[in-house]
């Protein structure tokens, strides 16, 4: 399992549009991607649950990637967060 931390800089937080893109990317990665923040976690490929975490700007999230090509998936995810969130 690979993990990394990221602090959200988008002013609205993980809002609908990037969350939708994130869910798509997570699904396509072939790995199981989990996002944790504020003591809760959600499968990143499930858009509504992901938004249900209510992650705001300034929140630090932990992203963990399991299965499949973990190293590549984790790199791709980190890149995604940096450019979208």
């Amino acid at each position: 399992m690979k993990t990394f931390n990221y602090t959200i800089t988008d002013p609205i937080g993980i809002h609908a549009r990037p969350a939708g893109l994130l869910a798509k990317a997570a699904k396509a990665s072939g790995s199981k991607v989990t996002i944790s923040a504020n003591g809760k976690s959600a499968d990143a490929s499930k858009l509504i649950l992901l938004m249900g975490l209510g992650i705001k700007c300034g929140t630090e999230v932990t992203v963990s990637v399991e299965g499949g090509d973990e190293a590549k998936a984790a790199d791709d995810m980190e890149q995604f967060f940096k450019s979208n969130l």
Partner: protein
Amino acid sequence: MEEYKGKAIAKGVVVGKIFFYSKETGQVRRRSIDDIEAEKQRYEEAKAEALRQLGEIYEKALKEVGEENAAIFEVHQMFLEGDEFNESVTSIIETEKVNAEYAVAKTGDNLADMFASMDDDYFKARAADMKDISERVVNVLTGSENTNTPTEPVILIAEDLAPSETVQMDKANLLSFVTRLGSSNSHTAILARNMDIPALIGIDIDKAWHGKQAVVDGSKGLLIIDPDPDILADYEIKLKKQAEEKELLKALKGKEDVTLDGKHIKLYANIGGVGDVADVLKNDAKGIGLFRSEFLYLESDDFPTEEQQFEAYKKVAQLMAGKKVIIRTLDIGADKQVDYFGLDKEDNPALGYRAIRICLDRPEIFKTQLRALLRASAFGNIAIMYPMIISEAEVIKIKEISASVKEELKSEKIPFNESIEEGIMIETPAAAVISDKLARLVDFFSIGTNDLTQYTLAVDRQNAKLEAIADTHHEAVLRLIELVCKNAHAAGIWAGICGELGSDTELTQRFMEMGVDELSVSASRILPVRQKIRASKTTPQT
């Protein structure tokens, strides 16, 4: 005649017949079913149809309200395609042995409740999206279509309008929107502004108004039902004038900002945030002459990071696609206070610790902003402008800090525009008087007439009692502007006006005579000012 006052979210005047719009939300019946697979199949088919509809709505919205506002329908599709929605619907069908309509409605309600219970306003508002989605699928399942839409041009009144409802309406039949709920940033408001039709919110609408004649006055926020003949006659005149103006302005789009004797003027817009750019482009401004960076600080609970600022500046620069974007550094203090700056209360804030004075005193705040601005300069045509200057020493200090930040970026191999233009605001009488000296140190001047007027006349612009003597055309202020232009030109730099006065078309001719090179005005004033520039000369007209 009855008059109601609401909040205008889009300007203009219109006279027409009222149409009362209501959603046909028939109760969803719970029915027991035997064939689970057949019910799941019904759901799958309805979902596919709903997705197809959403795709169509997205395309339509893209044309009407732009990509940013249309994105919500793409998100609706994603919600509907997501596992959670589908798993919930099929699980309800399977475990409760109920009809698809019920399972969908129940799923929509559950998810809406989840969002409604969240504490952040943005996430709370997603509850309405969940309902919008489930209602769409239910309507496909029941084969019901909302037939309650206007067939002739009307003033549409409604309790509230969902984005998908406004997008689906035939725009040719919409003269105006009036709703009880809604906000000035809602999808409906944006649509109204893009369509250039008046719209009001906050009016207690009444079903009994359906079919009555009414006036919507978007400049006063008024809805007048059954207007008296004399009132109606007044509005007919206003309507005619409005139509003429619209025609004229349409004709001015795409035209050059050039005087009768051939001087090209930079006609730019003032903005206060990234969201204002759409208006700037719509009104055909040739650049942004004042981008107030305060919103980044005012909307935040702590100092905005370099990254947050960089993203905002970069976005505007990219949206303006090579057109000039002049960003003013932090102008906090005086009438704009932010808690986390920890500023002391002052007896005389307008003359106090504000703007560049804070930046030079707390260079760490200033450097973060400069780094963000310079980094963003690699993505468009950005210029930087410093506010509240009174001396050469300040400008020299600013240039030292700016040079050190540039060195830093170079050593980190971060790209930026090395020949970025840096200018100052002339908004103190001191700066105006020594503008000959200041002009040698900077690339441009932009005159902030609001502060310049208040400081020159010693008249507090926030004090309503002084309004009578706050003469914006005071000769002293005009002479200072003329002096600033003359000194700018002697040093080979340009001078513009970014204060309110710049959009005062009574003065456009005079400004041209003074040699003003740039006017930066609010987006809605671009075309009226363009019209005036095109009728002005740089020499007195008799």
